[in-house]
């Protein structure tokens, strides 16, 4: 197996794990959203890598070109990016509201406030 040749998939795996670990381990709500973002971005890179065809040209019809990259995963991932942006926006908006209601964005401090409530 060509280990270095598929380096983009190694990057995907690394980003995926780093993002997921940040979401799970961090107590700061903003950092959690950042982790979630990295996690989603890794999937975008994965999809884009799927579309790569060795020696393929950009998928624009042109005389003399017979081999094209697959544009479909790129189109799919545009949709997924939109979903990711919406998720981030909504998540950060929630963090703003949480900050207004609790005066903090640290998970453990929010927990303490809810317990004493």
């Amino acid at each position, binding site marked *: 197996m060509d280990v270095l040749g598929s380096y983009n998939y190694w990057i995907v795996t690394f980003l995926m794990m780093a993002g997921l670990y940040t979401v799970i381990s961090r107590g700061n709500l903003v950092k959690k959203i950042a982790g979630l973002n990295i996690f989603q971005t890794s999937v975008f890179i994965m*999809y884009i890598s799927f579309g790569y065809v060795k020696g393929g040209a950009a998928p624009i019809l042109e005389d003399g070109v017979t081999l094209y990259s697959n544009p479909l995963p790129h189109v*799919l991932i545009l949709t*997924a990016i939109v*979903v990711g942006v919406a*998720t981030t926006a909504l998540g950060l908006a*929630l963090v703003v*509201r*949480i900050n207004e209601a609790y005066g903090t964005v640290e998970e453990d401090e929010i927990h303490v406030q*809810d317990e004493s409530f």
Partner: protein
Amino acid sequence: MDQLPSYLIVIPLLAAPLAVILPGRVLQWLLATVVSFVVLAIAGMILAQVIETGAISYAMGGWQPPWGIEIRVDILNALIVLIVAGIGAVVMPFAGRSASQEIDPQRSGLFYGLFLLTYTGLLGISMTGDIFNMFVFLEISSLSSYALIALGRDRRALTASYQYLIMGTIGATFFLIGVGMLYSMTGTLNMADLAARLPDVSHARTVHTAFAFIVAGVGLKLALFPVHLWLPNAYTYAPSAVSAFIAATATKVAVYVMLRVLYTVFGAEFSFATMPLAPILIALSLIGILVTSMTAVTQQDAKRLLAYSSVAQIGYMVVGLAIATPSGLTAAITHVFNHALMKGALFLALGAVAYRVGSTRISEIEGLGRAMPWTMSAFALAGLSLIGVPLTAGFISKWYLVVAALEQGWWWLAVFVLLTSLIAVMYVWRIIEAAWFRPLPAHREDVREAPLALLVPVWVLTAANIWFGVDTRLSAGIAATAADMLLGVTP
């Protein structure tokens, strides 16, 4: 009339922004209610047509499948669509009175807009024949329901919504990873086409990984134990109408996604013979049923109690699904239908309580049986259905589950179902005891019965619980046909 299914997506989707810009709560509510009734009527027509002529396929925008997005409604989707549409058409009229009290008037347009978007998303998931499109609808319904939950009055609604957003997004992204891997192996996203191409590559590690990612992702969405922790908070702090709607539909649709992916896309043989999924799902569900039922017994808030009970009930569905025989699947699909009815009725009844009393804590429900007899007797009847007493809908689904277990020779599972139903007796009884066997506190003397606008939806669903406990042609009858179809058995 092949374009009928597309109306189910287009009508609520266009109505959603319209509801936001309409002036005044009454108009917005009226629009949402009319849309929900129209959607229910169309869903009924679709079911009738599917029973008569078989699956309906509609190519969105005229692009033929497998290239374009196909909307494909067979007997299983038609039933799920009917559930979602029916619950929507019952909850939307209820939301008028309930939300006018719980939602800030300035936000009521957004409330109805989001409600319609969630509705669109859930209907879309249940009808699409394209697996990437399924992800998109999953996110439409999820994102709008996070926002809906955050509209709850308690500030804990915000943290509940945030928690749900994190878990839901991880689940959806897992699903997306799996879909991408399937695409890279087969070059197609159409579910029927995937089903045809996957057997050729089913030995590949990529397909196995994709399977694991998709199952884990959908498991998060359907609140499978132990990844159910987002659910109790979300259901507890959401506005009453939202709790009722989401509890009755969102997890059911996720169960549908699981059924569709396991049985249609991967095929029963790959899912249960090649991959060791059945023991995992059954073990997790059984532990989940036991743990969450016990947790439900100790809750102080009636909504939270029902939320934990929901996780347990999802366990029954997943057990039925994992048994992978016609009777097991029939049990799962029937329970999807019946559980929507009972949880819908129970959460709506609690919504009526919250309308009058302003709280759903069990200590605040004391004595309400005398002050709000109609609401609380509806709650009691739906509670009996949740336990699975004969002549209620709940009995039918548990009966099928026990039959499916005995067919396998798993008598222990039958005993387990009966024993955990006894735990359900315990938690339902706590609320009934508080409502009927405790004196009404002095400061509650002036509490009156809920208004008719709230009582009618509650009783419609309660009556449905009794009706489908006696006449099972629509629920178990269709579920059995759908189960045979999923397993490829010709009836």
